């Protein structure tokens, strides 16, 4: 029997009568603390202040967000953990679609109309399962991956009822640890039991992480033909296509996803980026516009989204639209340093394209001031800024900006090409070569030397070189991860070097911030824990991988 007396619940529904019906039913189960929210915003406010055992949310929450988006935002912000029950209530007309659209699945779905009895037995079932998984979830949340893994194995052996649930969670643990091959094998095993869509997705994802993108692509194509509403399938298909430089196909995949479910701003943003890469400015415009419109209610909206839209307008020659995007959202953009930087750069660039040199220069100088005060911006924005500076005759400033981008992206052909084109357009192609060479030369040399030294077994010198490379390219996740990896090998070999682990922690934290989904990251984080454990050092909890931008 589940004890409900001590449990707390939050009911989210835009229909007042429904909220009170839920409250009455939950009270009849024995709950004494039941809170209510009418909107997603209200629910987020409540969850920030109170920890709930049970959240019951209607899928349809009126105009702003739906129950699925709300769940994703709560998880993303770390407001609810694996131990929280999330029960989604949906109409039958949406059920199949809602189920297929969920990458991050709630614990269960209730189809309307239903009665209190069914709700009770569903809650009983979910709570019993959470209890069985409690220790394993705790270990996972603390980053104790080996223990979480052992917990899954134990559940698989002793609780036949939870066999598939335990296998599913084990797959996530293995992926988080960077053990992709074992994860593939596990998903294969599940697929042999039954080819359920989530297991096929898991298999394709691990293949993609193992650089077998071709195989993953074929698998996903079959999957989305069979389940056209499976949004995560389209998303992952786009990922594996991009990994193979098939940007045209990736755009088609993302467009399919967007046409089935256009509400996610992350998907719209992605479509905009890929379309922009493909030079399809019309699609980029509508996707970035949708990002900004739908983003009004989303925590995922970032200042850079306004820069993306504004940039597309500028390239289409619609400078007044570009300015309008910034001016209409001035209040929001002024809330963060990055937003202020976006405002000045895009306004300056639009004026510059209009031939209004004085206004352009004024905005660019504002931007430079912001930058000097520490405002961060995406590399694309810094290159826009460089372009504006170059046109305003601020050549040194432009070179410094291009240099900063190049130093952090010596391995990105796309950004280096864009940097060159800025100088080309200004008729200074030869300057570009110099600027880029100067900026990247040193980092490239340090990285090469570091790798060579490591190969020869001189890990002390290798670590020194690679730490220096990381210092010079602090926004290049690959450089940071290489440095962390070699330093950990050094400590493993020579425990007297364990003081280097402090730096390793910082490098991995920054890498997680810059590239939260990088396939190497999980493996490195797990390695850090095992190196620490071997030395008897207590590990800090891993920083939440929020990927949020500075200043938001």
């Amino acid at each position, binding site marked *: 029997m589940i004890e409900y007396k001590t449990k707390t619940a939050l009911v989210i529904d835009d*229909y007042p*009568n*429904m909220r009170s*019906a*839920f409250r*009455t*039913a939950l009270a*009849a189960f024995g709950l004494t603390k039941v809170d209510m929210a009418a909107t997603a915003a209200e629910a987020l406010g409540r969850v920030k202040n109170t920890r709930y055992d049970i959240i019951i949310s209607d899928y*349809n929450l009126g105009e702003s967000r739906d129950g699925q988006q709300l769940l994703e935002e709560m998880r993303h912000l770390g407001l609810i953990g694996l131990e929280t029950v999330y029960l989604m209530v949906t*109409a*039958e*007309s949406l*059920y*199949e*679609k809602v*189920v*297929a659209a969920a990458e991050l699945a709630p614990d269960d*779905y*209730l*189809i*309307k*109309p*239903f*009665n*209190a*009895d*069914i709700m009770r*037995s*569903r809650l009983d*079932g979910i709570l019993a399962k959470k209890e069985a998984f409690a220790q394993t979830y705790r270990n996972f949340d603390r980053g104790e991956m080996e223990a979480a893994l052992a917990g899954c194995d134990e559940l698989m052996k002793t609780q*036949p*009822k939870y*066999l*598939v*649930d335990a296998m599913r969670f084990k797959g996530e643990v293995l992926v988080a640890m960077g053990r992709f091959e074992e994860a593939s094998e596990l998903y294969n095993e599940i697929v042999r*039991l*039954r080819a*359920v*869509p*989530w297991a096929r997705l898991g298999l394709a994802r691990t293949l993609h992480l193992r650089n077998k993108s071709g195989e993953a692509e074929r698998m996903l194509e079959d999957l989305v033909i069979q*389940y056209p*509403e*499976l949004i995560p399938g389209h998303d992952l298909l786009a990922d594996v296509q991009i990994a193979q430089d098939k940007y045209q196909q990736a755009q088609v995949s993302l467009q399919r996803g967007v046409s089935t479910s256009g509400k996610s701003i992350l998907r719209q943003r992605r479509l905009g980026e890929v379309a922009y890469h493909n030079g399809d400015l019309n699609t980029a415009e509508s996707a970035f516009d949708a990002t900004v419109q739908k983003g009004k209610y989303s925590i995922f909206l970032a200042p850079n989204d306004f820069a993306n839209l504004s940039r597309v307008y500028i390239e289409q020659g619609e400078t007044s639209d570009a300015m309008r995007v910034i001016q209409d959202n001035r209040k929001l953009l002024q809330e963060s340093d990055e937003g202020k930087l976006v405002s000045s750069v895009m306004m300056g660039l639009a004026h510059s394209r209009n031939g209004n040199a004085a206004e352009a220069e004024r905005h660019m100088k504002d931007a430079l001031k912001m930058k000097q005060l520490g405002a961060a911006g995406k590399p694309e924005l810094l290159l826009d800024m460089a372009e504006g500076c170059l046109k305003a005759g601020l050549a040194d400033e432009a070179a410094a900006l291009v240099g900063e981008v190049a130093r952090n992206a010596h391995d990105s052909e796309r950004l280096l090409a864009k940097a060159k084109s800025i100088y080309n357009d200004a008729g200074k192609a030869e300057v570009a070569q110099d600027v880029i060479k100067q900026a990247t030369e040193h980092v490239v040399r340090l990285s090469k030397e570091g790798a060579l030294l490591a190969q020869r077994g001189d890990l002390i010198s290798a670590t020194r070189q690679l730490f220096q490379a990381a210092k010079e390219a602090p926004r290049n996740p690959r450089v940071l991860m290489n440095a962390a990896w070699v330093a950990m090998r050094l400590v493993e070999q020579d425990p007297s070097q364990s003081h280097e682990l402090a730096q390793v922690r910082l490098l991995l934290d920054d890498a997680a911030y810059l590239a939260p989904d990088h396939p190497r990251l999980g493996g490195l984080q797990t390695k850090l824990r095992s190196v620490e454990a071997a030395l008897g050092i207590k590990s800090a909890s891993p920083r939440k991988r929020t990927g949020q931008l500075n200043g938001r």
Partner: protein
Amino acid sequence: MEDNDLYAALLHEMKNNLVLLAMTLDNIPHCGEELHDAPLDAARLLAQRTSERLLQSLLIYKNSQGGVILNAVDAYSTEDFVQELAQHTRSLKGTLTVTAEVDDEVPAIWFFDRNMLEMAMINAVHNSISYARQQIHIRASIRDGMLAISVRDDSDGYPAHILEAVAEDRTLQTSGTGLGLRFARLIARAHQNEGKVGELRLYNENGAVFEIRVP
């Protein structure tokens, strides 16, 4: 377009109201007095049947528009499924004896779309509640390598024309029992695995037996 929006909004409201009605009725406790409890049970059952009919007609309509694809097939506990169904049946009519049984050979988990299969089975439960004398038996077993969930009552059994219609795979009438059976068949058949297709079976064996087999 405006008409469609209006219908959608009306339907949405109706479904919400049905949830409210069902939950309100569930919140009225039994008090052990026939005069109170019997009409309460009748009202609960009626609310359930109305919900069920609404859902089924909407899903059958949706199917006619392009087929039902089950996106939510997953591993579920067979024991929990049978117990949940039995508990639901008891709550609808406390005077009946409802028993649940899972054969030893049934695995702990099976793959199916629980919400859909449950809706189809509840349909049989509602039917049996109207005709059973004293007993309803819910059972999970293995038949032809498929999971068979059955609802058996101690009534006189199904009339011949219904048995024939289901056995011969004829179109079932669109009202009452026929509608429910059509829906159940639709859900059973939407369950497919390794070339096998789910089935709906009706037969009389010491009463009426409604059975859905999922591969």
